């Protein structure tokens, strides 16, 4: 470890000398020029919907002024020619508004026109003398969190009897009785809400809270840390390309020392960034820890890519792909704050919640941070495993090197179990991605495709572990483990990983409408039986593939197919029983 630290200091010193003067000059010039232009001609805020809907209006149409006042509507004057020809989506005549029933665009335009009319009316009515008539409604809205045993109180249940000593007898039981209006109890005072109170709302402003602000603030973590990780990966990669790293590797240093030593300065800086941003945003301790989980994952991922990529071009493209993926994975679930099981898939939601000052349960915290933390650890382990002469500088294809990496981890008994476990977060992410890709093609078919492909993904993962364990790269020694041992360990490891993850995360969400179905799809039924039975499935399929791997590629392919069929049959039976 001491060697690693020494390397770290040296590395920190070298970081500064990366960019030559010409480049910096170019970047600074571009930055200054942009700043100058923007200062002199401030660009308007982006308005993506400007003039999106073309509408034809008769000058005598009463809706014309409203349409003209809305930026999103582009008005053509006419009596119907444009509408007939399809250029206009709506026709505003003096009497009516016409739309096309078979055109989604037309319907969307109508919706927008409706909003425009309301807004226009409101604007006009502000000049009225009798404001009570113009604005007869004042709305106050509060979103109040409550903890409720949802299972106990469901629809159709009788209302609970009020306890003795509870509400004073104001006679407010049963429908149809008019309560006396005095003394007027303001429910707000009664409720003493902790949530934010929104007053004087217009009807169209009644909307569920969408914490976009706190979501956007989390970008403050990702941007600097991401940049740092990228720079670090480029540096690391550059050493490989010129084989400069050979000098270090031939020195009496372990590969762990080399990789960790080189990464330590950037890693430390990342943690510092996370701390600084946490304090600035007020995200709290849990927010800080949650941010670490995805920042460390990002760091581990880019380091792994630096060790894997064969050229700077490949590296930059892999980085772009990986960071886009990660960002999507981080931000999209957080867009559903009203669906905690979905929102907490992303640690960003934990951070955003912390910024808003709300509490997060331990179970939710673990659910959000475990996959990425485990993934970071896995990637780091694999990257260290690959930091060896023959692996670092080889020109073999990408998949071969991935397998090499896996093989470096999975040639001993315990590490084999570990490999099985570590693969699980990636399997889940892969399954999510499969679903998403299928959704692009067709939302309806997505579920079916997902069910099918998720089986394939799991078997591929187990197969990879088994193949890498049995037949690591040309330059690594073959494992002494027998196929049976190999298969059993890989299968059991996978099962351990899968079930621990599920147990940790889905417990507490069982009351979700789709929980049972989701669990069934993931191979778990309710109760102890549902959790333990799958071990046989995973062990069996992994065992099958291990024996196939021992005999070579063709046999592996055959046993893989058999495993998929076996798994599909198992799922079919399971789904049939529990649905």
């Amino acid at each position: 470890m001491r060697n690693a630290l020494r390397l770290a200091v040296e590395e920190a010193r070298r970081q500064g000398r990366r960019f030559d003067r010409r480049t910096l000059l170019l970047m600074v010039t571009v930055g200054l020029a942009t700043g100058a232009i923007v200062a002199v001609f401030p660009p308007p805020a982006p308005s993506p919907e400007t003039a999106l809907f073309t509408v034809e209006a008769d000058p005598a149409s009463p809706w014309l002024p409203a349409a003209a006042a809305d930026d999103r509507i582009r008005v053509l004057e006419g009596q119907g020619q444009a509408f007939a020809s399809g250029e206009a989506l709506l026709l505003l005549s003096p009497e009516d508004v016409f739309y096309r029933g078979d055109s989604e665009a037309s319907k969307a335009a109508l919706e927008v026109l409706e909003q425009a009319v309301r807004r226009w009316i409101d604007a006009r009515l502000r000049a009225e003398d009798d404001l009570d008539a113009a604005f007869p409604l004042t709305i106050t809205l509060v979103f109040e969190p409550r903890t409720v045993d949802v299972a106990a109180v469901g629809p159709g249940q009788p209302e609970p009897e009020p306890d003795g000593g509870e509400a004073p007898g104001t006679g407010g039981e049963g429908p149809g009785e008019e309560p006396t209006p005095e003394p007027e109890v303001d429910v707000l005072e009664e409720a003493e809400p902790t949530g934010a109170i929104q007053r004087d709302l217009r009807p169209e402003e009644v909307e569920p809270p969408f914490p976009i602000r706190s979501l956007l603030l989390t970008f403050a973590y990702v941007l600097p840390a991401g940049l740092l990780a990228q720079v670090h990966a480029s540096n690391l990669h550059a050493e490989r390309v010129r084989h400069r790293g050979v000098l270090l590797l031939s020195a009496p240093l372990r590969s762990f020392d080399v990789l960790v030593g080189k990464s330590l300065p950037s890693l430390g800086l990342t943690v510092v960034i996370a701390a600084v941003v946490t304090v600035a945003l007020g995200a709290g301790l849990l927010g800080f820890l949650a941010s670490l989980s995805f920042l460390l994952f990002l760091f581990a991922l880019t380091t792994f890519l630096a060790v894997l990529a064969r050229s700077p071009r490949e590296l930059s493209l892999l980085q772009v792909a990986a960071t886009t993926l990660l960002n999507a994975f981080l931000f999209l679930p957080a867009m559903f704050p009203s669906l905690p099981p979905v929102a907490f898939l992303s640690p960003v939601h934990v951070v955003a919640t912390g910024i808003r000052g709300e509490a997060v349960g331990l179970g939710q915290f673990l659910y959000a941070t475990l996959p990425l933390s485990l993934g970071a650890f896995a990637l780091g382990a694999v990257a260290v495993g690959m930091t060896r002469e023959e692996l670092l500088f080889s020109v073999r294809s990408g998949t071969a090197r991935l397998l090499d990496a896996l093989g470096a981890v999975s040639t001993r008994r315990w590490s084999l179990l570990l490999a099985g476990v570590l693969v699980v977060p990636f399997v889940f992410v892969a399954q999510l991605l499969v679903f998403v890709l299928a959704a692009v093609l067709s939302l309806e078919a997505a579920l079916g495709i997902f069910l099918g492909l998720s089986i394939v993904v799991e078997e591929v993962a187990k197969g990879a572990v088994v193949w890498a364990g049995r037949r690591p790269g040309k330059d690594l020694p073959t494992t002494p483990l027998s196929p049976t041992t190999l298969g059993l360990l890989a299968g059991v490891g996978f099962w351990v990983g899968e079930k621990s993850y599920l147990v940790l995360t889905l417990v507490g969400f069982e009351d979700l409408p789709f929980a049972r179905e989701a669990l069934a799809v993931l191979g778990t039924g309710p109760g102890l039986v549902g959790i333990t039975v799958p071990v046989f499935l995973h062990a069996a399929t992994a065992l099958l593939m291990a024996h196939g791997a021992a005999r070579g590629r063709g046999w592996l392919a055959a046993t893989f197919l058999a495993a998929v069929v076996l798994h599909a049959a198992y799922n079919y039976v399971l789904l049939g029983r529990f649905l």
Partner: protein
Amino acid sequence: MATGARVVATLARKELRDVLRERSLVVAFLIQMLLAGFSALLLAGLTALHSPEALDAAPEADVAFVGADDGFAPYLRAEANLRVTLLDGATAVDGFRDGTYDAVVQERWLERDAVRTLTIILADGELETTLLSTQFRQLLIDYETDLRLEREGRLERELVLLETDVRPEVPYTFVYTTLIPLLVITPVFLSGAIAGDALSQESKTRTLLLLRSAPVGPTVLVFGKLLVPVLLVPLQVLVWLGLFWLNGFPTREVGLVVGAATVMGVLLTAAGTAVAATVKNESATQAAYAVLVLALGVVSMLLPRDPLNLVSLLAVGTVEPLGVLTLAVLGVLAAASLVLAVVFTRQRIVADAL
């Protein structure tokens, strides 16, 4: 001696092979596909949440109403999925807290003809809340409109109304203002990166010397390197537009959209090439290109129609003066940047500075 065209074709072919072999295009495509996929998911979720009509059955909810029965309460009662119970304030709040009721609504007024105050308490962080808010919103809009109509006599101005239940069944606006423009513009950035990378690679491995010693003029050389990145743009854009068309989102002005994207592609490819010619070092080129792209993005907001908006409008089929003007400006900028980049890169090559 080889004709200019053959040389350009040869250079371009190798360029294409390199791009395909390094899986750059596949990766780039994957990124875009994932962007589209995640957005589709997000959008499906949001659509479902914000339009209960889209759901097969709006969930049943219990509303505790505090106040007179002849104001807003009938509107709530008229909804099939809502069960309204009239209560006093304290019972209502207690009922809300223990989960009996999903919402508390209180209506108060000093006089029937005066302003009516509605206080609504909904549960935070629950799925029903999102659905209920959407439902309430529409009811409140209707309530206000009806109240205004009742009091129309007191108003000087005429009430112009438009009430309709018609809603688009697909997320029309989101697709055309966000999804399609994003997917059309992403290939543009990527092309610049690919072009810059290719040039700095040749310079770094010094294979540029080989090309220069061939009977190939430096101008032809630069064009050969630019061709493939530029052509990749319309290719990808067409695939995306096709995919959307198949899913029921046709693009009206395909030619103009592809044209706009290609023009922007020329601009960014020229920029990427010029950056690579200036900077040489590969990783520095990437960083500098990223900064440049950001800057261009900001500056592009100054155009009569910003690029995203332009693509939206063309996709929807609206060809209007500002849009045409923007296209013209982009065309001029692209031509100028192309000329500048070619001249600059050529000069750097001839000066043996690459």
